[in-house]
């Protein structure tokens, strides 16, 4: 109990600190006075304050939202498929969304955020429906590795189509950065369209979390307690679609955060999804904000894509888990 409370308060404090640091540090280090001025008495004529207000602030807010969304969607998928290695990236959901976006880019050249989101949602839902069809017919959770392999196949398929689209329509340059995943181009306009969706998804995830805990005890237990496992799964898939689809539309296909964060969080708060989901949310946000700051500081003024940083942290983590035999 106390361990759990400690975890929540420590992560919360760290998150707030990281959020402020991410406003100050970047290719150019700002002064704290500029940060506070930009937040509380914004002067549109001051260049230093403009940088913070128009570039770093939306970026920071986006990082918090997206980090939380990826982590929560990972926790949800892991819960409903009883698959410890599920992640929206590994299952091909992110690359499905990527394909949707590539198609939108090909058709309209420079799409508005709303159109982009619609495309990315449609793509993501194709993957989700496929994964749901395959895994609901074979009994759920029986073979996680099959689902991951399906995800790998889906990913390379969608990547192939996206590649041919970008070859045929000459999108190479525009798409590459987006595929890699980065927060560099976040604007207020994008945020305004997307943040309600992510908040809605997070709220939904928190509401459904007690049901997921029951589901993780096994379908039989859930049924005997009067729950309908498949209904819970469908609802959760919808929430995953909402979270992953909108995050991908915002920052591109970023994997591993949804895999890693719930694992780390379970170590501190236990296996009850009522705690795992919110804890994944704030820890995921912290993780993403830190990764974002690191991505700016590795080789300034060049940006190393945030997605790459996250993958490079995530892979050794996953490999160690495999080596220990805990997966």
């Amino acid at each position, binding site marked *: 109990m106390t361990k759990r409370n400690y975890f929540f308060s420590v992560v919360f404090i760290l998150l707030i600190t990281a959020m402020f640091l991410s406003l100050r540090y970047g290719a150019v280090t700002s002064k704290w006075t500029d940060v506070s001025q930009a937040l509380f008495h914004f002067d549109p004529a001051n260049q230093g304050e403009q940088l913070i207000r128009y570039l770093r602030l939306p970026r920071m807010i986006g990082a918090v939202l997206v980090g939380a969304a990826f982590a929560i969607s990972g926790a949800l998928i892991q819960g409903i498929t009883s698959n410890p290695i599920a992640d929206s990236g590994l299952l091909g959901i992110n690359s499905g969304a990527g394909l949707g976006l590539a198609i939108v880019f090909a058709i309209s050249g420079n799409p508005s955020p709303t159109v982009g989101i619609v495309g990315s949602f449609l793509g993501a839902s194709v993957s989700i429906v496929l994964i749901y*069809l395959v895994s609901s017919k074979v009994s759920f959770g029986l073979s996680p590795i099959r689902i991951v392999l399906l995800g790998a196949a889906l990913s390379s398929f969608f990547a192939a189509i996206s590649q041919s689209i970008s070859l045929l329509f000459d999108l190479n340059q525009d798409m590459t950065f987006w595929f890699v995943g980065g927060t560099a181009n976040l604007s207020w306009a994008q945020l305004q369209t997307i943040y309600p969706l992510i908040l809605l998804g997070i709220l939904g995830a928190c509401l459904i979390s007690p049901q997921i805990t029951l589901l993780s005890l096994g379908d039989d237990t859930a049924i005997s307690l009067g729950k309908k496992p498949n209904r819970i799964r469908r609802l959760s898939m919808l929430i995953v679609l909402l979270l992953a689809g909108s995050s991908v539309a915002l920052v591109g296909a970023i994997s591993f955060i949804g895999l890693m964060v719930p694992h780390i969080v379970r170590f501190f708060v236990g296996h009850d999804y009522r705690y795992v989901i919110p804890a994944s949310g704030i820890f995921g946000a912290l993780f993403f904000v830190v990764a974002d700051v690191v991505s700016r500081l590795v080789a300034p003024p060049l940006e*190393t894509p945030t997605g790459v940083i996250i993958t490079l942290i995530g892979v050794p983590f996953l490999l160690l888990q*495999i080596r220990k035999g805990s997966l």
Partner: protein
Amino acid sequence: MRKRIGWLSLFLLLITGGILSLTVGTIPLNLNDLLHVFQGTATTSQQLIVFDFRFPRLLVSIVAGMGLAISGYLFQTITHNDLADPGILGINAGAGLTVLIYLGFFATGESSWYLPLIACGGSFIATGLVYYFGRQSERITPNRLLLAGVAVNAGISALTLIGTIRVSKDSYQFVTAWLAGTIWGTTWQHVFLLLPWVIVLLPLILLRGRSLEVLELGDEVAVGLGVKLKRTQLFFLVCAVCLAAVSVSIAGSISFIGLIAPHIARQLTGRKNNQTLVMSALIGGVLLLFSDILARIILPSGEMAAGIIVSLIGAPYFILQLLKKSN
């Protein structure tokens, strides 16, 4: 009956594909021209096109397709998982990264004939990593191997992405094309680098075909029937990795052939034995040959990659199979 039709149509396809591959291109030839070329009575430029450009390319695509298919067959048998693609061992990703590093930071001038060797080295290093993290003391556990593969693949791709940001534009384009699976090794030198592996390894594998069939029955049964489990697994694994690595290093990063060729062969022959192995090899060759032809027809400038076509054909087939199986 089905088997006989299968063999017959495969040979027909191979011949048609061969003729098509020699005639289709930026300078189209007709059958008459081709006949003249083989009689030695055609113009020198036509002789040059056929013997120095198209013929090696034809051989490379057939042999590389065969190598990938055999590798996939072996790998699926060892892991007892018909969804396993040799690419998941990190073969494609590892080769891609070393090619990028070499071209970006060490190469001077023309890309030389030993580029395939470098690519091959990368494949072996990546596979070694996968093996290290996935192995257990007494035998090879398929699922952990696959998992480790997924992780290593993701990590190497992230490193490759970092690399692509740093290298020059030319190397970047070459590596992108390589990763998409453009058949680039099209000289006789490449044919001679590739062919011996298949000529030597295929008979060796066929000689030990019995123990492969026994492995199919399950690891415990195989041990019970007197197979030295770990040694046999390792032998086939090494063969699979060598074949795939050589094929990928010369033909470019191509996935899905190792996945679907064995599937089709099994459906045609109805069982798994040496005949199935040879048939999957043929199917692999035909698949890659036709993908290359299609890619050349779609974009004659040579920018469409055969690997993309393979994915576009292969993935839907694979997903349909999976859905059918789940029913």
